[in-house]
Each structure stands twice: as C-alpha cells, then as structure tokens.
C-alpha cells in the first residue's frame, strides 16, 4: 500500500451532483492511492453509486473535479477515461461466448488475434475458469458470470477497477468465497480498485480503506479497524456493527453523568463543553462482565430485562440506565457459564473509558 504522502492516483475535489432539485452528492473531496482497495459504504440512496458513476464519467458531476494520475478527467466521456467496470447485473453480452466477452475490449484496441487468444486464456486462468471459454454466460452460475465480468473488465489492463455492488446478486455462501477471491486477485495484480457496497461485512473484510457515506456526504474515511473502533459520528457507529447509544451529560472533559452514575471518559471532542447533553456510544461486546469487572472503573449494576441467544454469544437487554435507554451487552457462551444471566437477575458491568466514544446529543 502506498504511503499517504505519495501523490494520489485518483483525486476528487469538491464534487457535487444534482438531479434537478435533489442534491445526490454534496461537495465531496477524496483521495485514492495507487494499488489501494477502497470501499464506498452506505445505505441505499447515500450517493455511493452516484460518486462511482461520476468517476467513470457515466453520469458526470454537476460541479467539481476528478483527477486520475494527475490528469483532469472531469468532463471526459467514459470512453476517454481509463477504467474497467463490473456491474451488479454483470452486463455480460448474452449472445457472445465467455471468450468473446473477455476479448471484447482487446478487439477494440486492435490487438493482434493470437495475442488476444493468449491474453483471454491468461485471464480465464486468473479468475479460475480456464475451460469455460466456449460457453455462453447463461450457461454459467452467478458466481462464474461474476468472474467473467471481472476478467472482461481487467482484460485491457485498466489503471482503475470500479465494482458496483458486484456481489449483491449472489447467495451468501458464494458471496463469502468471492469476497476473498476478488481481494486476492486485486492484491496479485495490484490494480487500484473502488467498490461500492451497502454490505458492511463486505467492506470490512475487503477494503484497505472504507469511505462511509450518508445523504450525499462522506461521514468518515479510514481503515476498517479504525472505523469500527472509532466511528466519527453516531451514524457510522450505528451503520457499522451494533452499538449502544446512551444519553448523558458532560461533567468535565473526561467525565459524564449517566442517570445516577458517573463515568470517566478517556477524552471528549474539544467542541463539547461541560454541562452539555451528549451521546455516549459503546459496542455491546466492549461492555465488561463477570470476573473482568473486578477492579475496573465505571461500574454499573443493572437488571436483565430480556436475553437473546445468537449462537456464539448471548445478547442481554438491560433495564433502562438513563431515561428510557437500555443497554445491550454481548456475553460469550463461555463467560455466560460463570455468571447468572437469567431474566430478572441483576448483573455488575463496567464501561471501559477507552471504548466509549462521545458525540453531541442526537437530535
């Protein structure tokens, strides 16, 4: 992965896209580095596909600029840009064989026939379909079609690979396998890749960096771990994984009042002042229970209201801590053996300061 100081491969500056009155993208700026795998993640309608289509030139932005390798491509039609694309529908040409589909872009570059042949064979080998070349797309499974689409997009060796929800038409098992394969392939050939997805798991497992989007703006850009453990906003915390939102009042920059309890915080954003209402976020699996509570700060005793069994862990829903917000606590099956988690019993828990994020109170 390139270092952050290097010249970005793709630079997006102040991109805004309007469809009539509706603003789909608001002043988006972003840099993507060479060989990076970036995911645009967000709920449907957040503008992620619009941004991808602007980068491809399929729906050019209303204002703002896009640079690829330092070249201003803002107003160029797709045919003058350098990218390969895979759509959710794959858009394989149904009347052409797999080979012809993969060769389609090469033929337009006037590559000699024998060179095309070896290149197509190479690509089909690469995506693991070495002997399916003579078949038609309709004769392949969804996952195989997906790989053909990938081979076709990579055939002309584009500098940028764009993937628009490439896995969402597949069933869960195939999706999990292809996630890994695509990532592997991208590593192997080192093509800069942008993938649009609404599936957080996909983004977390595949991306070097995730761009979380909502309502036409970027909420956060960062590595998967970064985004998961330090979400920049309650939206990100809520959209990725599961989180507890706790209403609280800030006492000092490093402490807050939750109902009758006072908890210490590791830090709070500088723009928040003492006495202000805030929202504290902590993930259910970060709440300490059982023997790990001993000696830990920020201890609270709560009644258990309801228990969900989710396979490898139990999720406890507690009585309200402050106002009407209750807490979700994940307890692994192993730990559940050492404490009483029956409904109605009381439990001692601790909220580690380093896992609590502080945000301005939600509207």
């Amino acid at each position, binding site marked *: 992965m390139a270092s952050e100081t290097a010249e970005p491969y793709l630079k997006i500056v102040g991109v805004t896209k309007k469809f009539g009155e509706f603003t789909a993208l608001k002043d988006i700026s972003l840099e993507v580095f060479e060989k990076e795998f970036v995911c645009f993640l967000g709920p449907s309608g957040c503008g992620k596909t619009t941004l991808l289509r602007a980068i491809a030139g399929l729906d050019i932005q209303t*204002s703002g600029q896009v640079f690829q390798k330092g070249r201003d491509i803002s*107003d160029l039609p797709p045919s003058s840009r350098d990218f390969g694309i895979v*759509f959710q529908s794959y*858009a394989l040409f149904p009347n052409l064989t797999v080979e012809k589909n993969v060769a389609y872009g090469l033929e337009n570059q006037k590559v000699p026939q024998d060179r095309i042949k070896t290149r197509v064979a190479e690509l089909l080998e690469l995506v693991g379909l070495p002997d399916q070349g003579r078949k038609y797309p309709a*004769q392949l499974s969804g996952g195989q079609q997906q790989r053909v689409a990938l081979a076709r997009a990579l055939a*002309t060796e584009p500098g940028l690979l764009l993937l628009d929800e490439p896995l969402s038409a597949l069933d869960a098992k195939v999706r999990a396998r292809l996630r890994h394969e695509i990532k592997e392939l991208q590593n192997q050939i080192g093509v800069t890749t942008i993938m649009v997805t609404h599936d957080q798991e996909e983004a977390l497992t595949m991306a070097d960096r995730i761009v979380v989007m909502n309502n036409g703006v970027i909420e956060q850009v960062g590595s998967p771990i970064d985004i998961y453990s330090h979400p920049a906003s309650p939206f990100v915390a809520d959209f990725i994984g599961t989180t507890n939102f706790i209403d609280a009042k800030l006492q000092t920059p490093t402490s807050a009042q939750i109902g009758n309890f006072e908890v210490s915080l590791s830090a709070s954003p500088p723009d928040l002042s003492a006495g202000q209402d805030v929202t504290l976020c902590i993930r259910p699996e970060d709440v300490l229970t059982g023997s790990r509570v001993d000696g830990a700060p920020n201890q609270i005793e709560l009644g258990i209201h309801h228990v969900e069994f989710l396979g490898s862990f139990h999720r406890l829903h507690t009585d309200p801590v402050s106002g009407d917000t209750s807490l979700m606590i994940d307890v692994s099956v192993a730990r559940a053996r050492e404490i009483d988690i029956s409904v109605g019993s009381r439990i001692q828990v601790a909220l580690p300061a380093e896992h609590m994020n502080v945000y301005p109170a939600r509207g």
Partner: protein
Amino acid sequence: MSEAAANTAPIVKPKISRDDWIMRGAMILIALYLLICIAFPLYALLSKSFENAQGEFIGLKNYITYLTTPALSWSIGNSFKVTLMATVIVMFVAFIYAYALTRSCMPFKSLFKGIALVPILMPSLLPAIALVFFFGNQGIIKEWLFGAELYGPIGIVMGEVFYVFPHVMTIMLISMSLSDARLYEASEVLGASKIKTFFTVTLPSMRYGLVSAFFVAFTLIITDFGVPKVVGGQYNVLATDVYKQVVGRHDFQMGAVVSMALLIPAVFAFIADRIVQRKQVALLSARAVPFQPKPSKAFDRIMLAFCSLIGFIILSILAMAAFASVVKFWPYNLSLTTKHYNFKLMDGGGWDSYYNSIELATWTAIFGTAIVFFGAYLVEKSRGFQQGRTAMQALCMVPMAVPGLVLGLAYVFFFNSPDNPLNFLYHTMPILVICTITHFYTVAHLSAVTALKQMDPEFEAVSQSLKAPFYKTFWRVTVPVCTPAVLDISMYLFVNAMTTVSAVVFLYSSDTSLASVAVLNMDDAGDQSPAAAMGMMIVCTAAGVRLLHMILTRGIQSRTQAWRKR
C-alpha cells in the same frame, strides 16, 4: 469547502464524445424524417382547410359550410353511431372469446387463437365483399336480416366487428393473462363466490385493458374506409366522405375539412389510450403468479361452443371470400373457374398492381424496420441530450393518432405542392413506401422500445469502458439479441403494407397501382368476383409471410437457445 463555495463552483460541461455526436446526428436525421413525413404534411392539410379553391385564406368559412350543410355534417353523427355500436358488440364478443382462451380448460385453444387472427390478413374491403355475397341483394342468406337492408349501418357494423375483432381480442387476451393467481386464491380462501370473484378480481384487474381495447376499437372503426366503402350504401360516414369529396368531387378543401373532423376523435381516443396505458404499467407486479384455470365440464363446454361459433363465422367469411373469387357467375352459375384471377381484363392495373404491392411491402419492411429500430435505439440508449430525446419520442407517437386517409390526403397537399423541392417524389413508389412506413411507425416503434427496454441498461456503459464505439455494440449485441423483435416488426410492416388501402388510396399512380386499391376499384366497377380474387391474393401472401416469419423465428430460437434464457 463552505456551502457558498460549493454553490459558486463552476458547472462541469461534459465533453461530447465522437459516439455522442454520431448518435445525436443520426437522431436528428430521423427526427427530420418524421417532421417531413408527418408534421409538415399535417400542417399543409390544416392550412388547406382554411383556404378556398384559389388558395386564399378564408378563415373558418369551410368549416361553417360543412357544419351548416346537413348532407355533409350528418356523417359525423352516422360515424359515431355505427362506431359505438360496433365497438360495444366487438368488445362483448372479444371479451368472452379471450375469457374462454385464458380462464377455461376447453380444448383446441391454440387453434382458436389462430383463427381469431385471420381477419388481420385481409384488407377490410374483403370481409365486406364477403358480406355482400351472404346478405346482399343476391346473398344466399339475405332473409336472415328479416328484410332489413345490408347496405347501411347493419353492413358497416357487421364488417367492422369482423375487421377489428383480432386487435380487440389480443388486447383483452394480454390483459387477462396479466392477472395474478394469488388474488384468485385469496378470494377463494375468503369464501367468495365465482361471480363475486369475477366482479372483484377479474374485472378490476383488466380495467385498463378494457379501456384500451375500447379506444383501439373506436379509432380503428371510425377511421376505417374499406368496410363502409363496400357496404355503406347511401349511409355516409366520415371516412367515405373524405374519399368522396376528394376523388368524387375534387373538392380538396372540403376533403381537408372532413379530414380534420376525422382526425379530432382519433386524436382524442389516442390521448385517452396513452393516459390509460401509462397507468397500466404501475399495475404490473414482478412477483405475480400466472393464473392456471381448473377444469369445469359445463363451463368449458359453453366456452367451447361459443368459440366454435365465432370461429365458424370468421372462417365462413374467409371461405365466402375465397368462394366468391372462384365462382363463375354469382348467383346464376355456381360452377368454379379461375378466370377471375385473370386480372389483365379488369380495371385496377391487373397483376402489376399485385407485384407493386409486393414491392411496396418489401421496401416498407426493409427500410421501415431499419429506421424504426435504429430510431428507437437512439431514443432509448443515447446519453444526455434529454430534450432532443423527449421531442423525438413524442414525434414517434404522432403517426398512431393520424388516420390513414388523413395522412394520405395530407401527403397530396404537401408533396404535390409545386413549391416543395420533394415534389419529384409525387406519384412514385418511394412516396408510397414513405407514407406506409409513417402510417405504421408508432406500433413498430413501441415494439422496438419494448424489446430494447428488456436489454441490460449497462451494456452501453460497459462497451464505453471497453472503448467500443456504440455502433459496434449495436451491431454485435443489440441487433442479435433483439432479432425476434426485429422480425416481428418487419412482418408487421409487410402485412400492413399489403392490406392497407386508406393511406395509399390518394397517392398511387397508374404505374404504381396496388393490389388493395385494385380490390377497391374492381368492387367499385361492380366486378366483385375479381375484387375478391385480388383480395384472396393479398390474404395468401400475408398468410405466407406469417408462416415464413414463424419458421424463421423458430429457427432462430432453436439456434440461439444456448444463450437465450427463457
């Protein structure tokens, strides 16, 4: 960046690629074609209706004369009367027929489906001639009319019901097959009776189809010229009036006025139909489960009896037309002969007019399909240029609203004008081809659009990313995938070019006489058997082309089934 900075940021003006230029250029060419072939002639017609014989502008005077001369204006009332009557009857019959085909388990369904389409193969003059042989002054079963006269409203209604039956039946068939079986199951589970289910599920689900069928029938009947020409007698309707004013009295101005009177209801029916169809789209659910009828002995038998009766009537009209063409001297000598097929001795241009018709139909099918399909592709798949595409789309819909007679007369005014540089086309084969393509443009355009809409919208995006010019993908992917639709369009154009009379009746010359026009002229001259013979030539040709189309489609489907998903 602040909100203000974003607002003042310069708007990006997309560079237009070579592909975009070519596509826009081609679209403008086709739009120009449509302007010249439909918009300008209609304007010429409209302005003619405000002129006197000397070509001076006289305002509404022609219209006032028209409306205050009872001999002229009573045809408005006549037209509406027979049209509404025939429409109601055909709706009723076609509804039961389509109901039998979709909701019963009677045998021979595909046979009945085929029989219902027989009238499409005939120019509307031909069933009218057959009616004369049944119910005319010397008809074999004329007493079935209880002394009433065939010539007049009775004949017109009978002929029109026959003529529009396949169109109405097809619309109803489609709208009935769209019904969702789950609604019927729900109704049954809730304990509703069959009759209640009919009124709460069946009828509501096809209300748009019914309204659409009504308007299609109404327009086809009020603008049809063949049937009233043959069996209308002294009973004037708008369509025959246009013809009489122009061909009989050479009063072009009055012809233009009557044309406008014919155009207005057609346009209204067209607009109403479009509004209804737009709503129908929203009704469709992708997850609907097709309805499967359950056998019911009594019901199936009644339906079989009904369809057999209708099928028998349709076939006997065809058989009578065929018989009329080979009978020696009706009704005195009923022995058979082929002499009526010796068109050399007759008015109407002889065999040449048949060959001309084949030529017209061939050119229309070839050029028409090419223009229509490529035009539809440009409208559907080009990028940007939104206003241009919307205007083009609207222009493509206009021909449907214009009755053939009106179009033909408009061509006379536009192309025959000495000031028109296209004047040289007048009285040639090309103008007949142009007129016929234009006349049937909309239906062909709509089937092309339907086929193109089923293609993945990202094909174009992918081929741009692969740097393929659009025409390459059009030729290598779009056309092969759409081949069945392309064949449908060309067959539609061919058959209609063979059977149409109304659009070309003002435009043919002695060198370009057509088979359908020959039927008209021979019937006019009292030579009904030769007219029937020429009509049968058209029927056989159209049937042959349909058969060829079926074989071709089957062949293509079996050769391409490897990649065509069902």
